[in-house]
C-alpha cells in the first residue's frame, strides 16, 4: 500500500501537488492567510466571486501598503490563477446562480491545516491516542468474530468489569479523570472533530473524481453494445456503492438521528463547563461543531445526489450513443471547415427551426397616437397690488449640516467618543426637530459613528415658543 518516498516521487510531488506548491509559493504567507480567513476560519464552503474578490482586494491593498507586497494584478486575476493551474480553489457555477463561486480544494485545505498545526499543539497526549488505537483494534476483532461463544465470553468479561466498577462506587471510591487526562482527551476530540470537517471537502472532491473516471471510461469504451449495457448497469450506482459512498451514508444516518444530536449537544455542553477544559480557553466554535458537520455533510450529500443523477443520465444509452455519433460528425465538420478556411461559403448554409411558433398579433401592436404637443400661451406677468405678508417665504428652516459636522469634530478633539445627547447639550438645537434629524443624517453618513438600537437616549430642547420638547432616539455615538 505505501508508496516509496524516493527522490523522483518527491520531486514530482513537489512540482505537481497543489498542497506542496502552496507551501512553496513565493507569497505563501499572504495566500495562506487569505484562504484561511476566507474559508476555514469561518467554516465557509462556497463564496461568490464578487464577495471573495472584494475581500482579496482589501487584503492585497493592506499587503501592498503595509508589507510592500509585490502582487500587482487585480484580485479577479489571482482568483482565476489559483483556480486554474495552481489548483487551490475550485471555480464553478452553481445551478441556481449566474455568478461564479469558489471553494477551497482539499489539497489547499490540507496545506493550510498543516501550517496551523505548526502553531497549535501545546502538548502531545499520547495516552488517549493509544487508547483510541486499542479501542479500534478491539472493536475490529470483536466485530469480525463469528464464534458466538467467543462473543459471549467477551460480553461476560465486560459485564464483570462493570460489576467491579459499580462495587467500587458503592464503596464510595469515585475515580475522576485528572485534569491532564481531560485536556488530552479534549485535544484529541477537537482535532478529530476539525479533521472530520476537512474530510467533507476531500470527500466531495473524490466523488467528483470518481464521476469523471466513470465518464471517461464510458467515453473511451470500444466494446459492443451488449457489453456496454452490462458495464453501464454495473456502474449505475458507482458513486453510492463505493467505499466512500457507503461510509458517508453511515456517517450521515448516524448524525441525522435527533437522539444523537441531542446527545452531542449535551455532552459538548457538559465538557465545556469542566474547569480543566475552561482553563485552556477552547475554541468556542467547537461547541457547535456538529451543526457545522451537518451543514457540510448536507452540501456533500447534495453533490453526491446531483452527480449520481447526472451520471445516470449520461449513462442513458440513447444520450451516450448519440453523443458519440455527434462527436464523430463534429470532427468531420471541423476538417471540412479547415479545408476551405480561406474560401468559406457565403449566404445561407442551413436552416434551423425557431424555438417557438411565430404568432403574429398585428392588432396587439399599439396604434398610432399623435404626439402630445404642449401649447404655451404667452402671458405677461405684472406686478400685483395686493399686500400679502411675505414673511412665510423667509421663515423656511435651513439646517446647515456643515455646521453640525464642525460641532461634532470640535468636541471630538477633546474626547475620544461622544454621544449625540452630549453634542446637543454643548450646542443646543436651534431648529428643533429638523436639526436633530439632520444630526442623525450626519451620523448615518459618517462611517465612524455607531447606532445602538438596543439602548435609547432622550434629547430635550426648547422650541421657539420656549416650550420644552423631547425625543427618544437610539443611542448614537460619534468616534474619532
Amino acid at each position, binding site marked *: 500500500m505505501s508508496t516509496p518516498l524516493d527522490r523522483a516521487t518527491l520531486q514530482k510531488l513537489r512540482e505537481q501537488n497543489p498542497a506542496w506548491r502552496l507551501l512553496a509559493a513565493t507569497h505563501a504567507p499572504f495566500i495562506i492567510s487569505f484562504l484561511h480567513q476566507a474559508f476555514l476560519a469561518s467554516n465557509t464552503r462556497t463564496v461568490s466571486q464578487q464577495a471573495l474578490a472584494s475581500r482579496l482586494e482589501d487584503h492585497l491593498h493592506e499587503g501592498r501598503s503595509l508589507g510592500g507586497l509585490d502582487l500587482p494584478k487585480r484580485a479577479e486575476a489571482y482568483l482565476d490563477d489559483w483556480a486554474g493551474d495552481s489548483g487551490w480553489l475550485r471555480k464553478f457555477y452553481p445551478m441556481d446562480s449566474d455568478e461564479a463561486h469558489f471553494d477551497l480544494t482539499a489539497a489547499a485545505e490540507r496545506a493550510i491545516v498543516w501550517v496551523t498545526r505548526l502553531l497549535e499543539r501545546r502538548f502531545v497526549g499520547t495516552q488517549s491516542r493509544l487508547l483510541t488505537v486499542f479501542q479500534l483494534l478491539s472493536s475490529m476483532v470483536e466485530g469480525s468474530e463469528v464464534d458466538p461463544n467467543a462473543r459471549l465470553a467477551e460480553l461476560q468479561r465486560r459485564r464483570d468489569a462493570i460489576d467491579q466498577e459499580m462495587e467500587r462506587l458503592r464503596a464510595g471510591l469515585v475515580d475522576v479523570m485528572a485534569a491532564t487526562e481531560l485536556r488530552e482527551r479534549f485535544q484529541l476530540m477537537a482535532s478529530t472533530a476539525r479533521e472530520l470537517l476537512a474530510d467533507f471537502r476531500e470527500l466531495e472532491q473524490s466523488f467528483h473524481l470518481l464521476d469523471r473516471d466513470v465518464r471517461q471510461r464510458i467515453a473511451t469504451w470500444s466494446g459492443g453494445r451488449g457489453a456496454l449495457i452490462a458495464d453501464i448497469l454495473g456502474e449505475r450506482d458507482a458513486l453510492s456503492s463505493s467505499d466512500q459512498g457507503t461510509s458517508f451514508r453511515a456517517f450521515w444516518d448516524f448524525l441525522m438521528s435527533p437522539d444523537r444530536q441531542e446527545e452531542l449537544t449535551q455532552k459538548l455542553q457538559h465538557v465545556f463547563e469542566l474547569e480543566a477544559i475552561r482553563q485552556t480557553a477552547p475554541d468556542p466554535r467547537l461547541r457547535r461543531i456538529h451543526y457545522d458537520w451537518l451543514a457540510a455533510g448536507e452540501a456533500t450529500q447534495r453533490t453526491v445526489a446531483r452527480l449520481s443523477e*447526472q451520471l445516470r443520465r449520461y449513462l442513458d444509452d440513447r444520450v451516450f450513443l448519440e453523443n458519440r455519433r*455527434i462527436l464523430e460528425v*463534429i470532427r468531420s465538420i471541423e476538417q471540412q471547415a479547415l479545408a476551405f478556411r480561406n474560401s*468559406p461559403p457565403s449566404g445561407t*448554409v442551413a*436552416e434551423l*427551426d425557431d424555438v*417557438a411558433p411565430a404568432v403574429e398579433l398585428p392588432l396587439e401592436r399599439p396604434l398610432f397616437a399623435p404626439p402630445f404637443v404642449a401649447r404655451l400661451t404667452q402671458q405677461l406677468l405684472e406686478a400685483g397690488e395686493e399686500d400679502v405678508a411675505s414673511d412665510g417665504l423667509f421663515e423656511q428652516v435651513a439646517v446647515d449640516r456643515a455646521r453640525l459636522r464642525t460641532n461634532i469634530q470640535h468636541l471630538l478633539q477633546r474626547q475620544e467618543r461622544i454621544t449625540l445627547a452630549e453634542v446637543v447639550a454643548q450646542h443646543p438645537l436651534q431648529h428643533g426637530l429638523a436639526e436633530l434629524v439632520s444630526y442623525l443624517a450626519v451620523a448615518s453618513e459618517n462611517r465612524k459613528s455607531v447606532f445602538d438600537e438596543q439602548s435609547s437616549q432622550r434629547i430635550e430642547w426648547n422650541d421657539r415658543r420656549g416650550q420644552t420638547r423631547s425625543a427618544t432616539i437610539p443611542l448614537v455615538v460619534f468616534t474619532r
Partner: protein
Amino acid sequence: MKQPTTAGDALSPLVISLMKGVMWREDNERHWQQLLSLQARVRDHVAVLGLRLELDEAEGYALLRQRPLEEGDELPRLIPRRPLSYPVSLLLVLLRKKLAEADGGGADRRVVLRREDLVEMLRHFLPDTTNEARLVDQVGSHINKVKDLGFLRPLGGREDEYEVVRLLNTFVDAQKLEELLASYRAHAETLGKEVPE
C-alpha cells in the same frame, strides 16, 4: 372528443405560454408542475396545429416543435425557420461540441465561456486576417446572432461571459449535424478541392 376548455382551465395558460416561447422550470415551478400533469392533453391539443411537445424533465425545459409531416400531409408550418450563415452554423457546431465534451468530462455541467474563448474557438476556422479588431467585431455579431436564437445566455448582466444553453442539444442533434456536414461537403466540391474524409 375532449372536454371543451373553459377559461378557468389550467390548460390555456400552458398552451399559450408554450406558443410564445420555451418554458423553463426555474421560471415558474407551478406552471411546470401543471404541465407535467396535463402533458397528454397539451400534446393532443398542439398536435392539431401540426406541433409536438418536447419536454425534458431532467433539464427542465419544454417547447413546441414542428411535427414531422406524414405522407400526404399538407400543413403549413407554424414554426419559422431561421437561415444560418456559415460562421453562425459553425459556431453552433462548436458550442454543441463543448456541451458534448462537458458531459463526458463530469463535474460541472454548466458550460460557461468567455467572449475571448469564443473568439479563439472560431478564429481557427476563419480566414487569416491581420485586422484583429475586425475579427473580434465579426465574431461579436455571430455571438449576438446565436444569442438571439436562444443558445447563448449572457451571465450576470455583463456581455463577456456566456452560458451555453442546453436547449442546443435538441436543435443541433446528430441529424442536423449530418445535414450541415453534407452542405459543407457540397461547398467543398464546388471548390474542387480534395478534402480528407
